[in-house]
């Protein structure tokens, strides 16, 4: 079977939906964070497949930037989470109740 751009688009859409559902239903902050990374990777697959299909490098450049930004976000996000954990001793989102959610 030949792999067409549509297959990549479907894979990317599936990853995106898994990520969105993960963010919405999971209660563990780390898993929510992983779901966000999943969404970003869905974006990357879409961009790379399109870049290949269109024979155009802009999409690949975009991916490099997305990866770099995801790394920066991870560094900052885990730092924030560490500060949160020191005070609350939990990474469960249901226990974030100092303010009304």
């Amino acid at each position, binding site marked *: 079977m030949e792999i067409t751009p549509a297959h990549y*688009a479907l894979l*990317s859409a599936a990853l*995106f939906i898994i*990520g*969105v559902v993960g*963010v919405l239903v999971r209660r563990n*902050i780390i898993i*929510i*964070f992983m779901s*966000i990374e999943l*969404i*970003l990777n*869905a*974006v990357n697959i*879409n*961009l790379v497949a*399109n870049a290949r*299909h*269109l024979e*155009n*490098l*802009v*999409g690949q*450049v*975009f991916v490099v*930037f*997305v990866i770099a*930004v995801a790394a*920066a*976000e991870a560094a*900052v*996000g885990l*730092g*924030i*989470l560490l*500060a*949160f954990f*020191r*005070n*609350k001793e939990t990474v469960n*989102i249901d226990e*974030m109740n*100092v*303010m*009304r*959610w």
Partner: protein
Amino acid sequence: MPAGFSAADFLYILPELVLIGGAMLLLSLSVLVPRRDGLLLWTALATVAVTLVLVVRFFGLDVTAARGLLAIDSFAAFFKVIVLLSAALTLLMSAPYLRVEGIRVGEYYFLILCATVGMMFMASGVELITLFIGLETMAVSFYVLVGFLKPNPRSNEAAVKYFLLGGFSLGILLYGMSLIYGVTGTTSLAGIAAALRGQDTSLVLVLAVILVGAGMGFKIAAVPFHMWAPDVYEGAPTPVTAFLSVGSKAASFAMLLRIFVVGLPALAQEWSLLFYVLAVISMTVGNIAALTQSNLKRMLAYSSIAHVGYLLIGVVVRTERGVAAMLLYLGVYLFMQLGAFAIVTAQRRSDIIGDELKDLSGLSKRNPLAAFAMGFFMLSLGGIPPTAGFMGKMWLFGAAIDAGFIWLAVIAVANSALSIYYYIRVVVFMWINQEEPVGSPIVIGPAMKVALGVALLGTVVLGIYPQFLFEQAEVAARTLQGITAATVVGGQ
């Protein structure tokens, strides 16, 4: 020099370079000469001032720099001035607050300047990657700033919520962008507009518009993407909240206007409808939720959500007059919102947090000047006649009627009337409620006096003579429309 870049490009991004240089200098100074808070504040302010002077010179220009990545035009200059003014006022009001909270100022000022750099690129980017990098420079700085009070559980919680929802919204926005790239094969906004001209609207494009609209909706905190705003506003250090509610909102509106008006005019009907719905529910939900708040920062958060609803009218209308009125309202909003937050910041003393509504009771006796200023900002936010808020709303709603959106204007006027209730409640607390004063007396330092003075002056002057700002806003709006008309080469 990198291929394709000329010396002129570096001249055009000189303001941003100065700001980055100033930020680096601040970071070095905070290590080399520790505990010189005054020096650091002056360095930060001087950097912002120099940048402001450099930016103002670009007003009236209309060029594309750095191989079509950045537009140096009046529209960008207008937003950069708003962003820099809000950064300057935030810096001015921060110092006493930071001392009470025991925050190390070097990193704090550094991050404020970094966020400002990101906002400036959001204002002038005309290409999706540039806009996204600008957005993230701002957002990552804000994640740290919101959680700056490390021992404070409220601040931690706010930072986690802001980070998670910010990352989620970024993913949605980027997915929309990747779909647009897939259809058009370019990331340049002018190239996207050219590629879509005369094409039929496909389902993928409508999906992309919804995803990008939702992602931007998170950033400007429009209902139903507003859940993070009240918690983040309440938990973040108050000056950061002020900067978040003005600077980040203005920059996000610039990015939103660029993407939709310049990049996607072919789908104007679809996104106009989307923002129509967002505008109506934002103002209604924001105002109704603000009615019952007892925490001042939460109330201002819901009030700012309602203001997003008003501002979106300019996007829905999308005429030159509508966009100009929206820019004018952003200029007005800058002064009144930052002024209100300056008073909330001054309320923080060593023995009291001071962000509850009841903490304001009897303020007219204890500090008449602060009470007068706060009352004036509240009246302006509510849109009562002699203030700038009234003028801004008049232009904005007038533009909606002018373009035939009568019902939108009617809903907006009804909402403004509703909002007056909770703004007046603040005034009632200050003047009529004479409970025993809580906490030590409010001291308003010289820097805070300057910030309050500028905010008050802006609110008064723009209320009497808004024409000056409106003329600038019209020039800025016209450059935005001009880009749509001109066909520009594709973005490779």
